[in-house]
């Protein structure tokens, strides 16, 4: 995890597997280093009358922590993941229907929110839902000396001064979602965005490889 000075940004070892669950319409498991999340997508299915929107699909995201009940923190993460997916999905192609995305946390070792986002994107792709663009999650930590570490582990996150997670879309690498913790300067923010945009190219390349690997087995 060198600092951002030179061009190459190191990310932890990624692993992804698609349609591993039979019941959901689309599913994926995503590993970033030791952090791993399982995602399942159900839909487009029938929607409750109270939640029905006449010209769009209703997206609902449920985050299950590893142990115990989901608390207020998971609620904020659910809101971020839901609105990011809504930005990428073409919901108006399935009006008056419901999409449910369930994210089950298997192990948390830092960069949790970006792992949720990557798993969500892969699951939506696996479910064959129409999307205007792909998106990926990148987490940057600013440590005490001001260096920017991409995809930090839990230990690095704890001693970092600030932590930022961005969702970057695949067409023009612009920021869809940003969620931050700790205080930082404007310059550090712009630097982190630049680093994340560069890191997202690597992640999108990883997306293409894993999808190509999956379809190579079938063709």
């Amino acid at each position: 995890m060198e600092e951002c000075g030179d061009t190459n940004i190191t990310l932890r070892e990624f692993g992804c597997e698609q349609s591993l669950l039979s019941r959901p319409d689309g599913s994926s498991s995503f590993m970033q280093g030791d952090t791993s999340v399982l995602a399942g997508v159900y839909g487009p299915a029938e929607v409750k009358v109270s939640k029905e929107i006449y010209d769009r699909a209703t997206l609902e995201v449920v985050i299950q922590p590893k142990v115990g009940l989901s608390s207020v923190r998971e609620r904020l993460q659910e809101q971020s993941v839901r609105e990011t997916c809504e930005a990428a999905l073409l919901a108006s192609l399935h009006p008056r229907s419901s999409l449910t995305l369930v994210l089950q946390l298997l192990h948390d070792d830092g960069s949790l929110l970006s792992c949720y986002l990557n798993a969500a994107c892969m699951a939506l792709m696996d479910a064959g839902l129409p999307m205007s663009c792909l998106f990926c999650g990148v987490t940057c930590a600013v440590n005490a000396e001001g260096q920017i570490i991409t995809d930090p582990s839990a230990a690095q996150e704890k001693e970092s001064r600030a932590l930022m997670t961005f969702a970057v879309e695949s067409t023009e690498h612009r920021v869809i979602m940003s969620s931050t913790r700790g205080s930082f300067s404007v310059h550090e923010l712009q630097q982190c965005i630049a680093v994340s945009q560069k890191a997202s190219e690597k992640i999108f390349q990883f997306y293409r490889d894993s999808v190509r690997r999956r379809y190579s087995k079938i063709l």
Partner: protein
Amino acid sequence: MAAGFKTAEPLEYHRSFLKENCRPDGRELAEFRTTTLNIGSISTADGSALVKVGNTTVICGIKAELTNPTVEAPSKGYIVPNVDLPPLCSSRFRPGPPGEQAQAASQFIADVIESSDVIQTEDLCIERGKLCWVLYCDIMCLDYDGNLLDACIIALLAALKNTQLPEVTIKPEACTPEVNLEKRNGLLIHKHPVGTSFCVFDNSILIVDPTAEEEGLSSAHFTVVTDEGDRLCSVHKPGGTALSGEKLQECISRATARQREIQKLIDKVIQSVKAAE
């Protein structure tokens, strides 16, 4: 039939205004609604503040209670914020447990307090490992007309500056503390975080301080929290259409100007309250 246009095709109605760089209530794109502040109105609370940003009204009451600190952080007190959206403030909220928006707001306020370290939790500790304060910051929206997060942060900050904690002395032999309700001293406020919320219309037009209607029609909304040292405490954009770097920079500069404005307003109101005493 014009009134019909507003309810039948709200998005078209708003677009027609945005084309001329103004908004249905006559404001500029980058103009805030009038913000009024009233401090110390609730005598049963240790600190209270009422904020009105246009129609959006939020009241924050702080009650301090005594408890023993956790084992891992023996020298730290607690600060427990909570945002409540009662059915009173808008017809969209149903009675019952807090909905997703209320919970997300509570977590956002908790994150802002932690990241901006507006007060040090060490100041809340009375006796290391034995006794400390817990500040229950109960933020309640009385009239929901959009831009809830900004109003909550201003209300919380003003209420914290208005809080007076009673003096507590611990006699070595008697394990129970001795509370002197008359003699009270204030809280030490280190930083003054102020939030500025923006809304994006059709992925391009950026408006500040959105009303409930504009929030409903916008394709993305996000909040920037800055403190007096121009450091960013939070850049919270839950999603929606993407945003380019320059637009983000534009928003941050608007946010720092807003921070100055609000800090002046708070100090002015505190002076007038002190003068009145």
